[in-house]
């Protein structure tokens, strides 16, 4: 397969070469575009010939060259300026076009599904983010860049190991259950017309991003659009002389998480109390003489402090990114080439990531009516972690009193014979190297002046090589006489290839007759995805440096496995827009999708949508009102979308092979592993949206509000089954979830003076509720008794926190005697769990909803200020009404050998402190730390996500050193946070559970941007 795709790309290139020789001569139009306000050149303005697909963009000097002749009508438009239409009177002379600042951004062109639309004529809910706003903040990936930029798009950024995504994106809440293996609530990501991943895309290559939220904008993507759609358009070449630019930064990353351990003496005395309370003998370490020698010790190798990992293992780590781009061309051919190098060190040893990539976007005008675009993107992405996945777990669990690293290079070992620094430095590595190749060819053919046909074919090839080598090593802790041994070194290697071929055929029609404007789209699309994987395992290599799979022991321990899968999607779709006098706008969309994931009558499904808008401000009566409102639009939409992310082949019962043995002979076995459901079909998403948009005060103030109601029904759910059936779950269409909410944006800008500023805020409110589970459920989900427990239950938000309610502490013996308790031997100071069902017992039947892990409110506020050559911008971002359930050592108050939070010191129950934050200390007894409302922490936060100060080097200096423009900047990310989790020393965007993830980081960045 791979070689076939290579052939394809080769063919496309050869074809281009062939066409180049046949280019024809034609008159050209030359010109320069300047800004009317300051006479400075306008870069990136679009210049098109009316009634043709021909077009170009201005370079950094505002210059353009366009094929054309006298009498042609050209349109010049640029974001932030009013468009101009000019009729060429004399093609030979150079033009100077002065663009006036736009009164508002309604003339902006917004990318929508399979096309573009003017913002003013939109009838649906779409947020557009410009590339410039994305790269302002140095981020390792685009998901992070989108945070706080658009209402209704919730990005939960969990930091994550370098090169591996940990961000979660949701458009208008959670619509489906995460229970099924391939389905999730993540939006569909379309880059230049093709489904791709957002995570590794180069932010510098992005021209704009559209967030399609309501069904009328997403229905054209049918069965993949239930969770909203993110459309990314990449930058393309501009005609004129070659423009080169460099954009790079150097940043220092630092951990945001820094929980502090209880002090040495406090901790030791606390342990004495915990043992005493539990009626246990005091271990030798916590006898008075031991405590004394520990406190007074100077030799910390022998008497190590408890748990110093956050302070000793984490380090500041550099991150750097360098982008070079070259862009240029003429009437016939325009190219943009960009190179990117990014390198990110981890904040702990042996973590890191590296990206190298090349993109070439090429446009060729084959004839006045025919344009060929070929894009190629190759990316190499390497991410590396220590072999042990336990490093951050060991920051908190089971590593008390281990000295990080002795002077002789060996590591101290805890009672659990562990040490996170040892695991990070010695355990080996786990590398994922991904080769990503995207190639696309697209042809636009203007059949008639109003009718354009486009065909696009693309291949996305993702090839991942994974290599995980575990070192064999022995660490002897001489002071504690403990040994940690990994007896055998092991190697697991994997090769996974996935290829997705997409073909799109589009027919676009547009016609304007007097006040009537009609636009239509007819399309056909096919997607074919196919993948294979191989993995191999061997162990006992000669030493830790011999790492080739063939060098491991050639015996029964060697192992291999593989996977193979494919799926397809075939779709037809259409869209019709009608507008009358720019006042009344109507749109209809429909898509007919067929998916290989379903069978029989369920294979195809139909997804329609309708929307309309009324620009009230265009009405005569509106003018008469004399309001300070320059533009006012109301719009409404309704539509259906679907979700097809059911595990492959769910529709038939399958048997899987297993193994057994009899009498020393291997025997095969087959057993049914999945319940069949041939009736399985699409999830359907019904969404209604009502919106209002306004421009006020001479367009200085803009405002929009949206109300939406989204109902997902027939949710594909890995339904937990009663195991008396022999199965634990099966995927079925069961359940309804509602998401309802409001989205607001408010912007104010003032460009009139030398001091210019703009402030944009957005707020989204989402209410999520499970409406129906088809009589099944509720489903309770938790992996381990002491970790977060979630419930899917009718009437509650999806995956609500589920556990005991509490009512303070038992205060005295009478109290204990008079109320049921969770376990025998309850004492004053133990948590009083509420007997909700009043049956005189504390059991699982007393559980109730105790929190919602998905934020109800999300908001962002961005601001730009500029004065002369300086500009300052910042982004505030946050969430409210979100609940986090912390678990594990960090909340377990010294019950086991875990990290014990500083906060616990002098804040636990005693008769003198009846309302202390923490209960009675008890050793080895977890009765007080099971999931209850006590351990639900308000996860609301407000964070200064980014601040950036930029200085543009004056043109005169630039000219002297021979460059056209240069800017330098400093910026800081995640600098400041207001959150209840601050006192825990944890990042508020963290997921519920044990804080054992790679920490979120803050960044301090120095950047440089040069246009040559």
């Amino acid at each position, binding site marked *: 397969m791979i070689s076939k795709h290579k052939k394809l790309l080769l063919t496309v290139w050869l074809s281009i070469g062939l066409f180049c020789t046949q280019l024809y001569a034609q008159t050209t139009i030359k010109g320069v575009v300047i800004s009317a306000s300051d006479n400075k050149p306008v870069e990136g303005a679009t210049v098109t010939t009316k009634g043709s697909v021909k077009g170009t963009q201005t370079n950094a000097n505002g210059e353009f060259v366009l094929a054309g002749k006298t009498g042609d009508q050209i349109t010049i438009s640029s974001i932030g300026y009013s468009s101009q239409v000019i009729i060429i009177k004399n093609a030979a002379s150079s033009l100077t076009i002065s663009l006036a600042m736009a009164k508002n951004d309604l003339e902006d062109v917004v990318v929508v599904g399979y096309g573009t639309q003017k913002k003013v004529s939109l009838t649906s809910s779409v947020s557009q983010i410009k590339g410039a706003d994305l790269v302002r903040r140095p981020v390792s990936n685009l998901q992070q860049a989108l945070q706080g930029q658009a209402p209704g798009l919730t990005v939960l950024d969990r930091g994550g190991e370098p090169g591996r995504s940990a961000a979660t994106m949701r458009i208008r809440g959670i619509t489906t259950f995460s229970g099924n293996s391939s389905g999730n609530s993540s939006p569909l990501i379309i880059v230049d017309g093709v489904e791709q991943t957002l995570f590794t895309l180069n932010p510098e290559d992005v021209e704009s991003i559209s967030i399609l939220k309501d069904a009328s904008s997403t229905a054209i993507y049918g069965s993949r659009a239930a969770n909203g759609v993110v459309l990314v358009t990449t930058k393309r070449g501009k005609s004129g002389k070659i423009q080169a630019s460099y954009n790079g930064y150097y940043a220092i990353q630092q951990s945001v998480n820094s929980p502090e351990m209880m002090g040495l003496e406090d901790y030791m005395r606390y342990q004495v109390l915990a043992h005493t309370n539990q009626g246990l003998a005091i271990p030798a370490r916590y006898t008075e003489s031991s405590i004394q020698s520990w406190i007074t010790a100077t030799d910390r190798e022998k008497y190590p402090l408890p748990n110093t990992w956050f302070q000793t293992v984490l380090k500041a780590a550099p991150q750097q990114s360098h982008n070079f781009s070259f862009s240029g061309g003429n009437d016939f051919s325009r190219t943009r080439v960009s190179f990117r190098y990014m390198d990110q060190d981890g904040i702990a040893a042996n973590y890191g990531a590296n990206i190298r990539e090349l993109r070439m976007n090429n446009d060729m005008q084959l004839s006045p009516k025919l344009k060929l675009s070929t894009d190629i993107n190759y990316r190499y992405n390497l991410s590396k972690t220590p072999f042990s996945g336990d490093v951050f777990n060991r920051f908190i669990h089971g590593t008390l009193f281990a000295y990080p690293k002795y002077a002789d290079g060996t590591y101290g070992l805890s009672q*659990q014979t562990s040490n996170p620094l040892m695991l990070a430095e010695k355990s080996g590595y786990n590398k994922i190297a991904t080769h990503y190749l995207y190639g696309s*060819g697209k042809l636009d053919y203007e059949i008639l002046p109003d009718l354009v046909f486009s065909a696009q074919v693309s291949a996305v090839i993702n090839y991942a090589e994974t290599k995980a080598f575990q070192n064999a090593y022995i660490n002897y802790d001489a002071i504690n006489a403990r040994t940690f041994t990994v007896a055998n070194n092991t190697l697991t290697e994997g090769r996974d290839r996935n290829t997705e071929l997409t073909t799109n055929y589009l027919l676009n029609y547009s016609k304007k007759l007097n006040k009537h404007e009609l636009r239509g789209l007819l399309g056909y699309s096919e997607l074919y995805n196919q993948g294979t994987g191989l993995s191999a395992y061997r162990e006992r290599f000669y030493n830790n440096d011999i790492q080739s799979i063939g060098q491991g022991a050639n015996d029964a321990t060697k192992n291999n496995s593989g996977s193979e899968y494919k799926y397809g999607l075939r779709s037809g779709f259409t869209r019709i827009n009608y507008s009358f006098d720019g006042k009344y706008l109507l749109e209809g969309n429909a898509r007919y999708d067929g998916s290989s994931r379903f069978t029989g009558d369920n294979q195809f499904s139909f997804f329609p949508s309708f929307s309309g808008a009324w620009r009230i401000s265009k009405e005569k009566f509106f003018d008469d009102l004399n309001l300070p409102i320059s533009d006012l639009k109301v719009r409404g939409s309704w539509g259906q979308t679907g979700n097809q992310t059911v595990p492959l082949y769910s529709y038939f019962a399958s048997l899987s092979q297993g193994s*057994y043995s009899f009498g020393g002979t291997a025997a095969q076995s087959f057993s049914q592993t999945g319940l069949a459901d041939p009736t399985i079909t699409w999830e359907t998403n019904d969404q209604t949206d009502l919106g209002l948009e306004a421009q006020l005060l001479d367009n200085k103030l803009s405002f929009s509000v949206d109300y939406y109601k989204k109902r997902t029904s027939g949710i594909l759910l890995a339904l937990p089954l009663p195991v008396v059936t022999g199965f634990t779950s099966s995927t079925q269409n069961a359940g309804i979830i509602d998401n309802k909410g409001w989205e607001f944006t408010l912007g104010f800008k003032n460009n009139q003076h030398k001091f210019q500023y703009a402030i944009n805020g957005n707020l989204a409110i989402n209410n999520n509720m499970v409406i129906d589970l088809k009589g099944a459920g509720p489903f309770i989900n938790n992996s381990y008794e002491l970790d977060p427990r979630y419930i899917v239950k009718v009437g509650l938000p999806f995956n609500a926190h589920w556990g005991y309610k509490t009512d303070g502490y038992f205060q005295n013996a009478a109290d204990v005697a008079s109320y049921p308790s969770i376990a025998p031997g309850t004492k004053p100071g133990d948590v009083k769990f509420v007997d909700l069902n009043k049956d005189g017992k504390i059991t699982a039947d007393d559980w109730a909803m105790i929190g919602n892990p998905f934020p109800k409110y999300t908001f962002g506020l961005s601001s730009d200020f500029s004065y002369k050559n300086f500009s300052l911008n910042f982004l505030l971002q946050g969430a409210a009404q979100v609940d986090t359930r912390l678990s594990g050592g960090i909340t377990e108050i010294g019950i086991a050998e875990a990290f014990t939070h500083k906060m616990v010191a002098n804040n636990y129950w005693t008769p003198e402190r009846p309302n202390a934050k923490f209960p009675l200390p008890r050793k080895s007894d977890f009765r007080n730390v099971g999931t209850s409302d006590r351990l639900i922490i308000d996860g609301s936060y407000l964070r200064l996500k980014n601040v950036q100060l930029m200085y543009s080097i004056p043109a005169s200096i630039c000219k002297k050193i021979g460059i056209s423009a240069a800017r330098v900047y400093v910026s800081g990310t995640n600098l400041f946070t207001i959150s209840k989790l601050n006192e825990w020393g944890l990042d508020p965007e963290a997921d519920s559970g044990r804080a054992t993830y790679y920490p979120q980081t803050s960044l301090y960045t120095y950047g440089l941007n040069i246009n040559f």
Partner: protein
Amino acid sequence: MKRNIKYLGCFLAIVGTVFQSCKKNVLETIPNDRVSSEIYWKTEADARYAVNSIYANLDATNLFVLDGITEIGHTNTVFTVEYNIENGTYDASHSRIQTEWQTAYRSIFLANYVLENIDKIKTTNTALINQFKSEARVLRAYAYMKLAGLYGDVPLIKTTITTTDGLAATRSKVADVWSFINKELTEASALLPNSFSGADRGRVTKGTALALKARAALWSGDFATASAAAKSVMDLNVYNLIAEYGKLFTYANENSVEVVFDKQFLVGTNTHNAFAFMGPYSQKSSGSTFVPTKDLADLYTMKNGKAITDATSGFDPKTPYTNRDPRMRFTMYVDGDPLPSGIPFKPVPGMGGGDEIGKTQYNTTTGFSLKKYVSAEDFANHVASGLNFILMRYAEVLLTYAEAKIEQNQIDATVYDAINKVRTRSDVGLPALVTGMTQAELRAAVRRERVLELAFEGIHLFDIRRWKTAQQVMTGPVKGITYYSGTTPVTVLVPSVIKTFDASKHYLWPIPQKEKTLNPALGQNPGW
């Protein structure tokens, strides 16, 4: 225009070529990584493979867990979830409660699936089909025995059921479950051969069915059936005790005459991790997940048959492991025993060595460590043992026979013979019981014999439940070895646990919370 069409044609041709060669119809994908039920149930091999899958779901290392939560064992680390069962703070949401329920019903489904589909196979070899059916019924009965013993009343599922039926399943009285088990094992035993050979060794036999029938009857208190079924196993003359208790759990004695029922394993293909799970920490950082306690150690008599509490027994607390019932050191590692790696087991604090109590969290907390299944033969690859896991051996049949007869007060020579056969095995060599004991004395003797003979083989939890002795034995702090610090004896007290048993509810586990939430009709056991 012409040129436009030409270019367009070229482009479409390229597109067409690529796609034509890659796929025919994108919507019709056929998997090649799994087998469809549509094409199964055609050949005898299909039946065999499906029956094999029930065996693969049998118990193995989870049986250590069941002993580990009685008084003879201890959950070694506080972060092993069974710790909460030991200290009585568990509830219906405990994962072990779910796991055992789930595994048993998976076995029941696999058996039901065979029984429902096997007749689709067109063959004249009815004997073989009957054998497969009987195997499935025996294995299903085995799963029901565990469920009845752990949960009491449980849903009695005899066919494959739909989700709807599963959501409405109700519990049958435990008596009905026991009678179903009895009927199934009786009928299956008639159709099974006395033994298998070659690549069929390890399949359930007539003896397996009858021995399980005896066990089930004993557990359910039907002593007449128990003794009769045990007697019928004895009369088969297929089984016997092997000479050496100490070599029961070795590769050499796999499929020996003592094995009535086992889960088979094979090095390299089908393995378990008993060594790494239960072995002492010094042995390649093995887990010591559950460790024997002083309660078990002290139960072993002296070699002369006298209890160590008997002043005339000759027990010397300074050499506590000398002249004891040899099964003690066949069952567990005690201070000074050579370990698989060659070093001695040294648990005494302050004496140096990798197994010192308290040195690491994984070191034994009692000073004892299990030896059964922790064999030197598996040291080289301690995570992948091929040693068969014995689920029923002839010694249990003998003791079941004796106990059932004693409970019926039918005390005769055969009762003494059965117990003595176990006691006087050549490498055990305890003195035979002296005849003339009262029923109560014999009851005590046979119970002690069961504890010691079958320790850590997954029987004891069920025994103390039916004897109703759990409330006496499973209380108080967990004790370990006694060692001398100078001249002072120190008995190790496990620092973190007080065993707690609430007789009002702990004799049965609760119905798993997840199952009860899905199907409230299941109800709940008393006290939960």
